[in-house]
């Protein structure tokens, strides 16, 4: 008898069917880059709410906030890239929906430095309670988060005296992680083919359940060739619960090298900032697909 390997393919709705209200959910990508929007879309179609969202935030944070799904947000920034009027390149923009929700006190937040978010996820992935860092010392992060603590090194300081006092960045364990990559197999191995993996592998490793949508699913034997080379196979099925084939699944954010940010859509979405009715209509229309 031959054993049959697990096929982890799911639809976006099946992924969201496994999520529960109140969960801590990490969202991959960075700003307006390679966000798992097909999965966010399914989330908006569902009644899953009261979420603690952890993200290098882009437009998905504004969308989830506008839809009232966020209870708590852990973030270092929420800034979708927008066109730079001077150079034609990109600059970080201010997400008007995130801004409005935050100013209205729609959810609570833990604010961290970009690097602290990385350390929090790494600590969770390694199953340690914290990781020490210099990042945050002297800043208002301690005022923003009264639970943040320091830790003293048991080793002598650089001058030979008492050990250094550092920030003890707590682990940020996730109930679920949602990420989008370029190519994967049915078992959950996946690769990025653009310029940057961002932190997608780390989010999956920090999560109890990891969900990956990909532009295309290929047989395992073709993964290396499809990825370009072996160094791009950054996501291992060890950390993946479900795989979704979702061509265009990052739109309207960018999915390098397959497609660029949908500037027109993002612009239309941001333009609804002052019109709740138009905002809800556009969001609902988008979520329906």
């Amino acid at each position: 008898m031959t054993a049959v390997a697990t096929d982890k393919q799911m639809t976006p709705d099946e992924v969201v069917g496994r999520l529960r209200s109140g969960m801590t959910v990490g969202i991959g990508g960075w700003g307006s880059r390679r966000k798992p929007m097909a999965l966010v879309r399914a989330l908006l179609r569902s009644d899953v709410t009261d979420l603690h969202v952890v993200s290098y935030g882009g437009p998905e944070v504004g969308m989830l906030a506008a839809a009232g799904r966020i209870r708590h947000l852990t973030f270092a920034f929420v800034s979708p890239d927008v066109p730079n009027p001077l150079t034609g390149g990109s600059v970080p923009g201010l997400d008007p929906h995130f801004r409005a929700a935050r100013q209205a006190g729609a959810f609570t937040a833990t604010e961290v430095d970009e690097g602290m978010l990385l350390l929090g996820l790494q600590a969770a992935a390694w199953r340690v309670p914290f990781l020490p860092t210099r990042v945050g010392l002297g800043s208002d992060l301690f005022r923003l988060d009264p639970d943040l603590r320091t830790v003293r090194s048991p080793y002598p300081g650089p001058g030979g005296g008492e050990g250094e006092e550092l920030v003890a960045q707590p682990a940020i364990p996730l109930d679920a992680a949602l990420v989008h990559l370029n190519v994967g197999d049915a078992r959950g191995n996946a690769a990025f083919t653009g310029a940057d993996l961002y932190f997608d592998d780390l989010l999956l490793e920090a999560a109890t359940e990891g969900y990956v949508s990909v532009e295309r699913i290929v047989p395992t034997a073709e993964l290396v060739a499809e990825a370009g080379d072996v160094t791009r196979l950054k996501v291992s099925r060890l950390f993946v619960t479900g795989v979704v084939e979702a061509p265009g699944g990052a739109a309207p954010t960018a999915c390098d090298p397959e497609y660029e940010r949908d500037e027109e859509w993002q612009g239309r979405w941001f333009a609804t900032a002052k019109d709740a009715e138009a905002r809800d209509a556009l969001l609902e229309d988008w979520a329906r697909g």
Partner: protein
Amino acid sequence: MADTDVRRADVCVVAVADCFAGDGESLVNPIGVIPMIGGRLARAQHEPDLMMTDGEATLIADDAASVPAEQRTIETYNPYRRMFDVVWSGRRHVMMGATQVDRYGNQNIAALGPDPHRPKVQLLGVRGAPGNTINDTTSYWVARHSPKVFVEAVDVVCGIGWDRAAALGEEAARFFEVRRVVSDLGVFDFETDDHRMRVRSLHPGVTVDEVRAATGFELVVPDDVPTSRLPEPDELELVGEVIDPDGTRYREVPDPA
């Protein structure tokens, strides 16, 4: 060259470039149009070993400020995660923007208002400012110098200033250096006994009264205020023909009326 011929944006560009003097082989991360142009000028003129990002995942060796992706000369791979390795190694000088900055160089880009849990105006978030300032040399660029930016006290300390660093103690703050603030009015440093912001130079045509009126705290003003240096002809040529041929710098800092 007569002062009247000097364009303000070009003075800003060379003032930014001069911030990177002595940085040698380090990653300079000038954020913004004029900082990017100034950083490239510094590398082309006096700091050939500087490394510079394309704003995404690679460090590029090109002189021009805006190079199409397919024409870039890539020197190394530097995705976001790698950038933290560089930041925490200290081999970096970042020039950030600032929504608010105070007399000790504390900087805010996160939120405005007295209650950070219920911001009056939500901005970007702290981004990498805490980690940058505690690990790396940091400077700031302010395109429009005003009392709204240069405030008595910032609402949220994202980038830490000299007073915060002093309170941490010498050892904890041993990698801290907020070096300069460059604005459309002048160049400022913290080279005073108590590290209060000092006028290092004012751009041609800017008066002490003008900069005082545009600053929400008391600046340290030396008896003789130097005038910011003018761009050399070869610098103007390099900026105008290679680094920023489209003149984007003039849109960021227009000439004074």
